[in-house]
């Protein structure tokens, strides 16, 4: 057998696209249908025969995307259709690949936040958080982060979960023709982003959570802003319930569509609402707690059927859970420092630079060459709105990561699409993509 590398050197690199049905081998069919359930090839081959019209020209392979309004960015799906039925589907990605992991190797730990925050641009604060936690673990300072910084991180991370899920509700509505929901969802998300703008200076891509703490303290009046936000969004969620959850058309479009079982979801390494929708109560905030989540009271929302409706309902209710968490965080927010007072990690305050030579030197060193991180490698995972986001950093003792890898939940979750779409309708394909809620910036990195 020639190795794949020799094949490439000979200029015969295999194509990324969907093969013609008659060229499929049993093993490839197994990949598409059977392997998730750990079937034998024979069983899978039997299952592979969806009722196909005997004349093969009845099926056609079409491209959906990469420029398509309901693929949430530049996701391309190759679909094999028979009439309106999806026989096979293959997601093709990479259109937004900008080599962010390679870029991450060029940036210091100080600058790294600006890079990772642009991966999942819908929940940037979670990306920054996981990167900071991994860096702090390597530095050995993860237990020395000031309490206020920890609680601020939780506050921002939960608000970000709300804004991300509100955006999901908006796009999910839009994809299914509930256009007013789109407007409502964007409107409420904008309220959250306005708060982020007040705190961090930016609506998105904040680079606010940094190794050692956060960039700045909360601004004056933040508590009133958050309370206003909670008062505003609570009743709006009830409106969404009236508008969509109980509405027959909405239920018809989502219930029983894109079903994935718990066994399949675990085998495909799906996480977040996609996994919980299938009835697996797995939430890293509860099951492998980080920050101070054990001190807070919240529920893990779990579905039972694993269909698109469950994933919708989970996200809607997770907004409510996040509001519960934010309310508790408001009560418990301690005072104190917002970043660690370790001169090697935290730049000195601006005022000190004018008075102290040492402060000037630290400031200069941190911003030119960055701080050094001891040799080692860690993997830290947290629960982002889309699932488990993990950061793997290998350090060689220098000021830049030797390797920085982000385990992107969307990248893994879109592997579920072929299984969810199989045998469904093209119109439901849109509902299925939407229900997985991929962010292509994170898929392609």
């Amino acid at each position, binding site marked *: 057998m020639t190795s794949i590398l020799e094949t490439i050197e000979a200029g015969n690199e295999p194509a990324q696209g969907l093969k013609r049905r008659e060229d499929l081998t049993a093993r490839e069919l197994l990949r598409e249908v059977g*392997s998730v359930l750990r079937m034998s090839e024979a069983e899978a081959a039997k299952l592979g025969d969806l009722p196909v019209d005997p004349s093969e020209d009845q099926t056609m392979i079409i491209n959906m995307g990469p420029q398509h309004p309901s693929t949430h960015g530049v996701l391309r799906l190759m679909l094999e259709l028979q009439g309106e039925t999806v026989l096979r589907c293959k997601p093709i*990605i*990479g259109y937004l690949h900008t080599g962010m*992991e390679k870029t991450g190797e060029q940036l210091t730990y100080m600058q790294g936040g600006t890079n990772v925050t642009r991966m999942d641009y819908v929940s940037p604060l979670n990306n920054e958080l996981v990167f900071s936690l991994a860096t702090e673990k390597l530095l050995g300072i993860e237990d020395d982060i000031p309490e206020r910084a920890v609680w601020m991180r939780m506050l921002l991370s939960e608000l970000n979960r709300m804004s991300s899920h509100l955006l999901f509700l908006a796009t999910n509505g839009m994809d299914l023709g509930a256009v007013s929901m789109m407007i409502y969802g964007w409107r409420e998300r904008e309220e959250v982003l306005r708060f982020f703008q007040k705190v961090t200076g930016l609506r998105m891509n904040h680079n606010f959570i940094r190794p050692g703490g956060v960039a700045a303290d909360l601004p004056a009046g933040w508590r009133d802003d958050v309370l206003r936000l909670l008062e505003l969004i609570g009743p709006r969620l009830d409106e969404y319930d009236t508008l969509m959850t109980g509405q027959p058309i909405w239920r018809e479009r989502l219930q029983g569509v894109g079903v994935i079982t718990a066994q399949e979801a675990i085998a495909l390494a799906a996480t977040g609402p996609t996994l919980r929708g299938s009835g697996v109560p797995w939430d890293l905030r509860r099951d492998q707690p980080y920050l101070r989540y054990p001190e807070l009271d919240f529920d893990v929302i779990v579905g039972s059927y694993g269909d698109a409706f469950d994933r919708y309902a989970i996200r809607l209710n997770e907004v409510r859970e996040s509001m519960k968490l934010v309310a508790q965080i408001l009560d418990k927010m301690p005072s104190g420092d917002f970043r660690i007072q370790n001169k090697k990690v935290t730049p000195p305050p601006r005022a000190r630079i004018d008075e102290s030579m040492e402060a000037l030197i630290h400031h200069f060193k941190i911003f030119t060459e960055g701080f050094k991180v001891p040799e080692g*490698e860690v993997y830290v*995972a947290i629960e982002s709105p889309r699932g488990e986001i993990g950061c793997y950093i290998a350090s060689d003792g220098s000021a830049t990561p030797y*390797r920085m890898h982000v385990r992107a939940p969307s990248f893994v979750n879109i592997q579920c699409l072929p299984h969810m779409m199989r045998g469904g309708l093209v119109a439901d394909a849109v509902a299925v993509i939407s229900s997985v809620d991929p962010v292509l910036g994170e898929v392609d990195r």
Partner: protein
Amino acid sequence: MTDDAHPDAASDAASDAAPTELHGCPLRELYGQSVLFVPRDQYTKVVRLLLADGFEMCADLTAVDYLTFPNRTLPDGVAAERFEVVVNLLSLRDRKRIRVRVQVPADDPSIPTLFDMYPGAEAMEREVYDMFGISFTDHPDLTRILMPEDWDGFPLRKDYEVGKIPVQFKEAHA
């Protein structure tokens, strides 16, 4: 290498490393995380045992190219090679993680696929192949996933320089 700023962290990591074994492979606790160093020829066998132990989800699979950092700390008996495939397995039942590190030599960058045990590793293995040129034997669909299919080279390798690629805009003139 120790760093003057954080001597505790470095020595912690070293003293944490109480040598133990799991399935005949060295197991280390680094930064409170379990890391298992598996030789390549036992990779499939050990991962199958871990699956039987309850690690039912392959949370992450990636690789590191240690071309410019060959003297990294490894347990005795593990010979450093250029590539390292890193697999993070997760047990939902026991709420545990374990990380499997496999040394992959530069002259034969290949390793068996985990697809039969963890179908979810499919896209991750394609990504590693795409970025590092490590081929996964018996992978059902080993094609580039993020880069265009006619791309030359493997971007995350350390000898692949940043900025060396000719600009792709063919018709553009300066």
